[in-house]
């Protein structure tokens, strides 16, 4: 199973890829998106996630999370420790997601005020994560085969040669009518994506502000999602990223949810 987390976002197809394009190879839109999707990914990862929510008045709210993710093959386990703001501090969230597409994620939340771990139903993929402008689906692993892809054109973005890919969902009830993605040739990193709502109206735009190569993995370390309809913006930043460090299995347990991170 591919490692998917919120950072993940840094890891999912849209953001990362190392496959080298063979000279002269003629690619389809699906080929491009598969190259982005099926690329090497770390076995585990630890990182600090800073999320800045900016409303239409310019007021900022900041969320800080420490997260650990580990890929076990058929299951990927993720645990998140909320550090800020103060009213959610010491809350923890654990998610086990399965490579079986028919199996829902298992999720638990530990609420320090209740001192209890609660199993919760999987979020609707169209729900927004923690009041941000990212839906759970934006942060997850959407298979390339779930959309039809078309190369619209090739153009430069931020000095990088890109394919511009239009993706339309095969499921007519999907929350986006289409997305348009700028994928860097050779690096297979998405640099920008535009989302259109169910009525075909421009909804939001994701832009990459910073990316780094960490132990051979291209990872986005700062991205911005701007919802043009609500004039609301979310900036996600990853700090202190560590990959392939051998996170112990005991990290993804009831014990750690209750104890929290130091």
């Amino acid at each position: 199973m591919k490692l998917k987390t919120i950072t993940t976002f840094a890891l999912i197809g849209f953001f990362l890829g190392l496959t080298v394009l063979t000279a002269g190879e003629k690619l389809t839109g699906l080929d491009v998106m598969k190259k982005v999707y099926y690329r090497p990914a770390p076995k585990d990862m630890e990182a600090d996630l800073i999320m800045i929510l900016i409303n239409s008045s310019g007021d900022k709210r900041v969320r800080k999370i420490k997260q650990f993710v580990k890929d076990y093959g058929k299951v990927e386990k993720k645990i998140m420790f909320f550090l800020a703001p103060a009213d959610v501090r010491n809350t923890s969230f654990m998610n086990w997601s399965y490579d079986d597409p028919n199996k829902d994620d298992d999720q638990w939340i530990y609420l320090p005020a209740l001192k209890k771990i609660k199993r919760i139903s999987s979020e609707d993929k169209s729900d927004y994560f923690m009041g941000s402008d990212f839906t759970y689906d934006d942060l997850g692993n959407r298979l390339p085969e779930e959309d039809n892809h078309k190369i619209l054109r090739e153009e430069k973005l931020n000095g990088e040669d890109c394919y511009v890919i239009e993706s339309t969902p095969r499921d007519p009830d999907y929350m986006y009518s289409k997305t348009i993605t700028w994928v860097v040739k050779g690096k297979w990193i998405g640099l920008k994506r535009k989302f259109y709502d169910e009525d075909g109206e421009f909804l939001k735009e994701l832009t990459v502000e910073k990316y780094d190569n960490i132990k051979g993995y291209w990872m986005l370390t700062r991205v911005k999602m701007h919802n043009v309809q609500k004039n609301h913006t979310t900036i996600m930043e990853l700090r202190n990223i560590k990959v392939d460090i051998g996170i112990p299995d005991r990290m993804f347990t009831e014990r750690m949810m209750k104890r929290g991170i130091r």
Partner: protein
Amino acid sequence: MRKFLISFLFVFVMLAPVFGGDLEITGYVRNYTGVLLHGDYDFSIVQNTLNLNFELKSDKAALKVNPYVYQYYDRGLEFNLREAYLDLYFNSMDIRIGKQQIIWGKADGVFITDVISPKDLSEFLLRDFDEIRMGITAAKLDYYLGDSTVELVWVPVFTPDKFPPEGSIWKPRMDLPPNAKFDLSRMDMEFNLKNSEYFGKISTLTGPIDFEIMAGYTWDSRPVPFLEREIDPLTHLPVSITIIPQYDRLTLFGGSFSTTVKGVVLRGEAAYYIGKYFRTTDPTVAEGVIEKNYMHYLIGADTSLLGARVSFQFVQRWIFDYQPTLVDPERHNMMTVLITNKYLNDTLTVEFFSYIGLTDGDALIRPKITYSFADGFDIQIGVNIFTGSKGMFGQFHDNDMVYTKIRYSF
């Protein structure tokens, strides 16, 4: 109190190097104002709260102290420690010693296997649950085996539930004989080992299912109202009745589970109580109470519906070997409903919660709106509506109220 807090800080700062970390201070201040919706619109509560958490953590140990202060407009300061404990972390085992809240079970807002921490019912069930559950002095050991945990708890000092004081609008209605007197001489408990409480639990958290199996040898947290009747030798009618409340031992076994089926979380929890005294109207029962066993259980479901979180619970208390003279019904049924939704990028939370008494036809309805106008700052407006005329909730039908809570967390 200031000296006390300064002493605290001093101790923590001194201990910080031992724990290899910095002292972390978090907490909140809050104003909670409620107005009754009947009569002269009296204030039901005007409370200012300071709640502090002092924590030191390392890989091997942790120390936490949680003092709080309630300041009311009509009485003195209430100061106490909700928790004050030391954690020791070993390879496969944790030990917690000190005053602590211990919460078991999968139920929301209902206490079935959650019997270790006593309850502060000074304001009925209206307080936040972290304030209803009182800390108790205990030693707790958790031993970890893969996805499972064995937990053992020793409570050397019994602490009963806390009830509203005389004159409080939350004092439960009691149907007492007109000539009844109280003798509280048996309420005191001796502080010795034989009065300890013991609990054990095995819990497992896995992908398909989470479950807990527990047992406890405890005290009934509410005193049993034993009666003593003085009988007129001529008429054989009682001349006077003395109520002698006394705490009694209880043994219980129980368990709980939660699992996910097609996006719906199903929960269940049950406890079988042995040796609980129930009040009887049978005049031939001299002490006025009869010992029975009973089952307390719930089934519940949580799901998402049209973007909202929805949760239902059905709760039943079932007295075995029932006798019609018992004051309590053989089966007491209740349900709870919770609907929550968030708007405006999670800054506005709308919640509807209700206890619905199916046996007595009463209910407590608690809608509320919480708006977070900045990180850490939130304001809440809600109402508590009691319906019915009898039962657990109907008895407070004159206590409908509207309230606001303004809170800053730091």
